């Protein structure tokens, strides 16, 4: 299996520039691209109302749709692309994916300052930890620009 770039995306307009960066990188390096969407229903934990709905399936379908949009963009650019929707904690999911696919580089967006559900500190710590464990290159982007680059082999 050829090496692949993993792009973590949440879909939506704000993530298009970051998806484009990953697509450009995959084209430049002539590698495959894997879009990953992670859903997490922890937000339901503090509500008192009954959750009678299979919300995880709903979110899977939503994630699948987001990734279909990303896939269309990548295919238009001529990049070989795969997509996967996973559930659970971000850190755990990334570690699992790195075991399943021959990932060379991970491209991920910087957390939103106002509305982000993670913090920059969390992402930096995550990048350090997983980067050291797996030797994978991490590129953190914001509006299509690289804001943090971590390469364990170089460092």
């Amino acid at each position, binding site marked *: 299996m050829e090496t692949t770039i993993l792009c973590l995306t949440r879909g*939506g307009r*704000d993530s298009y520039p970051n998806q484009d960066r990953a697509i450009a990188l995959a084209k430049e390096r002539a590698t495959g691209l894997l879009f990953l969407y992670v859903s997490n229903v922890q937000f*339901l934990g503090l509500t*008192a109302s*009954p959750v009678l*709905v299979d919300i995880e399936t709903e979110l899977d379908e939503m994630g699948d749709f*987001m990734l*279909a949009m990303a896939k269309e963009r990548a295919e238009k650019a001529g990049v070989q692309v795969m997509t996967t929707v996973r559930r659970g904690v971000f850190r755990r999911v990334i570690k699992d994916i790195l075991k399943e696919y021959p990932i060379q580089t991970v491209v991920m967006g910087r957390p939103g300052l106002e509305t982000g*559900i993670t913090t920059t500190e969390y992402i930096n710590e995550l990048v350090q930890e997983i980067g050291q464990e797996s030797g994978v290159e991490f590129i953190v982007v914001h509006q299509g620009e690289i804001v943090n680059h971590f390469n364990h082999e170089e460092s």
Partner: protein
Amino acid sequence: MKTKPTFIETLLLNKKAKTDLVQKAKIAGRTFFNKNASLHRKIAKIGLAFFLCAAIFSLAGTLAAFIQPAQASMQREGFFISGGLVDAQNQPVSEAQITALLPGNDQPIAETESQEDGSWTIEVPRVPEEELLVRFRRPHFKSQTFIMRQNELNTLRQEGIYRFGSYTLERRISAGFWIATLIFLGVLLAIAFEALHSTTAALTGFSLLFLFSYVASAFDPDLFIFSFERGLGYINWEVIFLVMGMMIIVAVIEGTGIFQWMAFQAYRLSRGRNWLLVLILMLITAAASALLDNFTTMLLMTPISLQIGLALGLNPLAFIIPEVLASNVGGITTLVGTPTNILIGAYAGIGFNDFLIHQTVGVLIALAAMGAYVLFHYRKEFAQQGGGISPTLYQKLEQNAKLEDPNTLWKSGLVFVIVLAGFILGEQVHMVPAVPAIAGATLLLIWLKPDVHSMIKAVDWTTLVFFMALFIVVGAIQEVGLLSFVAAGMSGLIGENLPLGIFMIVFGVGTVSTAIANIPLTASMLPIIKFLSGTIPGAGSNVLYYALSMGAAMGGNGLLIGGEANLVTAGITQQTSTPISFKEFLKVGLPVTYITLTAGFLWLLIHF
């Protein structure tokens, strides 16, 4: 003087019961022996023995009944003092201890407790010559003593009974008052700031209340709040069973994909007109919230609306925020539309039809005003032409929005219509809404034969426990008198001015519930509204309860933290790169709150 009809009646009844039993024994015995006697002889003997025993017990019962009334009749040679106890708000005071004492003697000669309606009767064996003291004691009230002097004693002596009439007990601010108040506020804050899960917060309050009542009060009796039995009395079981029944029905309906299908049809119908799309989505959400609940509606509508918005190349929040606002308002129309309406309906005896008749037009006016504001606020987004949707994405969207199980849909739809008919027609026979809800849920289980375990799991027990614990926490502040003080304060402000009362409830509750969870707020407002409904002329039409319903639900639109539907919608949008921010929600939600509150207020003024 009392006569002895009770004794005679009791005796006759027991005799009749005994005769019936013997008669039954004879008939049964004949039946047995008419059959093959040799074959059934042993069984017949056992049967005969059983009925003989029954007859003996019946006789024993008759004798016991004879002896007890005889004793009672002897006691009825005494003298009776009766009356009623109310608080300063004219609400009955139950479980007060009433003792009769002779002057200079702390040993009571008789004692009793007041009933649920505040009434009490005490029987004294003799009438003293000069004075008789009647003492009223109850936690959180001042201990008061009434001295019966010659006039009263003469009446008692001559007539055998003395009627006090209504006696007002004064509230006392005890240490328990402060403890209960602090616990209630603690629970509210823990829920508001998400420090604890709502159920955990309510259960913590519940536990603390009883720890103080039983453990701490052993050291200082002033810390007593209420007994466990008294606390349980505050749980409204009608609410619990109605919510439970609706949970099962909703769990079946939600799996059919009807919401997603309707959202997709809205997209198709709008034919690229975004303003029309948002209005249709708002109407669907409002209608669905009226019939089910707004939390579930938003759980189902948000993912598909996000997909539609993104597919159109528009900001999906321009669809989703109006939807959540409409869901909070749409639920007001019916008894089952919001948890707060369920609380109000069960407490005040307001039925499904009443909500429908008195709220629907007001809600439609509010929705129209909201729609106008939403179109104005998002005018740039709606004027934008999306980039069109590719056939692949269209197909995916259609697939995600397809009806999952049409067979289940029509069956569950039919049952739902029957349940609604039960809500509407049940009022004619005084059937509480919990009955059709539970019956409908049972019918679905029988007809559709879903996995019962998964259906029972669909009943969210944490929510039911939350309600039960919350009822007790709110019951505690009612018990210690906090709500009476608030009610008295509000009554002082409002006086007899009904429009002012409606205004204060609609806007006051509406403003508070922008930040405070509206379920505990509504639960704690109910006794206050009951009091005000009794003191303000014209408020007997339940108009203040409708004002509470509107304020509590519409206020939830003010802030992102104002309602659970808002929070869950925000939670879903956080799974995308276009999450709802506090500020974004505030910009639309706050003006909409006051626009809809004004519409609701004006409607109530006109209608009542």
